[in-house]
């Protein structure tokens, strides 16, 4: 807790330096710059897919299947002769949409549940904590498989299944951070001041939990993309002919010898996006904490 004293020796009054701008603090290191650039490029590619895709991602050309790269097809064509690069842009689209929706959904469920359980404690906490444990005991993907089996495959079911699968992870982290934060003297002083419990949670607990939550949410965003890939890989996620990183990987896996690029392209995209997201999450956490800003 002992942050560096801003007051110089003998200086009766502090002249605190104004806080550096948000962007400057976020992009403080080269790693951060690289990570955020990559994330931005992926998002841009997804958003601009209809503009930058050289071909219709679903247009088949059965005379030119499994082409290597070249001849206008930068990443070659797949087994239906569809342009692999165009499909990759559209796949990013569905992956990012699923990632964003899942992350929002998880935040919407996991954050209040964790806050409530951690701050209320007592019987409510016991019940919620057990529910979280049960949620964690079931492997998320298996849970998701079961839910999709019940709801039918598709983007909507995929998102719902991923939200249900990942919410316990966030709730658990939030709850444990809340248990620490509620012991802090500033929370106790708010109680002594007579601040109502819900207001203490919103004003004193929540902001101090968000740092840890941010990191966890970027993780969940990354998990959601992998989760979608996994579900689509086994045919339960995004349904063909719509492209997703997962179903592209699955289709490509059938032609690893004839056209290795079909599996490599989506695989590399997933790996790079994931690493960039994890780095970016670290950076967000540092910025979210005023004590870490210089």
């Amino acid at each position, binding site marked *: 807790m002992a942050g560096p004293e801003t007051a110089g020796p003998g200086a009766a009054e502090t002249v605190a330096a104004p806080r550096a701008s948000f962007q400057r603090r976020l992009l403080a290191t080269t790693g951060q710059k690289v990570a955020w650039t990559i994330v931005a490029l992926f998002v841009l590619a997804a958003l601009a897919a209809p503009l930058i895709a050289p071909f219709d991602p679903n247009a088949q050309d059965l005379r030119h299947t499994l082409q290597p790269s070249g001849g206008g097809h930068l990443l070659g064509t797949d087994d239906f002769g569809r342009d692999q690069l165009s499909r990759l842009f559209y796949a990013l689209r569905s992956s990012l949409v699923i990632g964003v929706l899942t992350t929002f959904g998880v935040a919407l469920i996991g954050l209040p549940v964790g806050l409530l359980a951690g701050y209320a404690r007592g019987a409510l906490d016991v019940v919620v904590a057990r529910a979280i444990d049960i949620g964690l005991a079931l492997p998320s993907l298996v849970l998701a498989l079961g839910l999709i089996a019940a709801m039918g495959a598709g983007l909507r079911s995929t998102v719902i299944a991923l939200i249900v699968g990942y919410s316990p992870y966030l709730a658990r982290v939030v709850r444990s951070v809340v248990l620490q934060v509620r012991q802090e003297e500033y929370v*106790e*002083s708010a109680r002594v001041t007579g601040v*109502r419990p819900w207001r203490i949670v919103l004003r004193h607990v929540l902001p*101090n939990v968000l740092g840890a939550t941010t990191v966890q949410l970027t993780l969940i965003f990354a998990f959601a993309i992998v989760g979608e890939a996994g579900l689509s890989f086994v045919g339960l996620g995004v349904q063909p002919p719509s492209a997703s990183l997962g179903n592209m990987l699955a289709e490509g896996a059938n032609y690893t010898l004839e056209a290795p690029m079909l599996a490599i392209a989506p695989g590399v995209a997933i790996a790079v996006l994931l690493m960039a997201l994890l780095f970016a999450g670290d950076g967000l956490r540092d910025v979210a904490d*005023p004590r870490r800003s210089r």
Partner: protein
Amino acid sequence: MRETAGASAVAGSAGSAGPAEPVLAAAGLTRTFRLRGGQGEVQALRGVDLTVDAGASVGLVGESGSGKSTLARIVAGLIRPTAGSLRLLGREVADASERRRRALSRDVQMIFQDPRASLNPRLPIHRTIAEPLRTHGLPARRAEVARLLDRVGLPARVAELYPHQLSGGQCQRVGIARAIAAGPRLIVADEPVSALDVSVQAQILNLLKDLRDELGTAFLFISHDLGVVRFFCERVAVLYLGQVMESGATERVFATPRHPYAQALESAAPAVRLAERRSRIVLQGDPPRPEDPPSGCPFHTRCPVRIGPVCDEVEPAAYPVGDGFARCHLLTPEEGR
């Protein structure tokens, strides 16, 4: 019963004329903590009797583990007593609901030991100071915050800063501004200066004294520093293993302490003038573990003047001394019974 006689003696001016209700009146206040893992309990407070009159400053001294902070937290409403009675401003709050307890928060405020930790790191100072005002429906305009900052000796621009941008002393001034904001009648100060540099300690103590004289707020002032208590408080209670061993007017307790523990504490305090210096009573051994308190007098394991088996077996009652009391068998008329 003698116990109760002693208890009312603590009340100090309770005997004097006037119906003025003390802001704090604790009787037989007890707090037990269960040890982690369900193995046994610790009695942090064992039947504490204490009174703070309106506008008075009562010091609470004792070693770490003596229950000082537990008492502070009970009075501030952070935890509940296990048994006993606690009246704040004439209202019984020992088993009050959280809602009823909250209703008293405007009148009972607290200053914490660690000034930085007691401020939300994510709120600018003006929001921290405005919080008690908002909470109690008082005008919380910027001008009011600036006035409070001025009152604790901070420039108005501090309002825009965050806790990590302030020094420890400045943070404590903010904590004090928050504590006085809603005009409380009792402030619990839990070691308010012990985390600060000595030079800053003096400034903060003077500030607290000025504010007290100006506002007429009563203080329950907790410290292990006898000099600080002597400077700030007109009455003092010496806590040992969750019991008040001696209490009374500060001058009396420091000049002629009657309990051997109070004597040892007093002799350990550094004297300013050489002439005042007397031989120091060095206590042998560590304080007993609170989860395993000794029988009889809690102090008998370290007492330099233990008189015999009575100390090991019989818990001494509170014998009136001056306008306070002391719990020691040496004071009993039928010594060695």
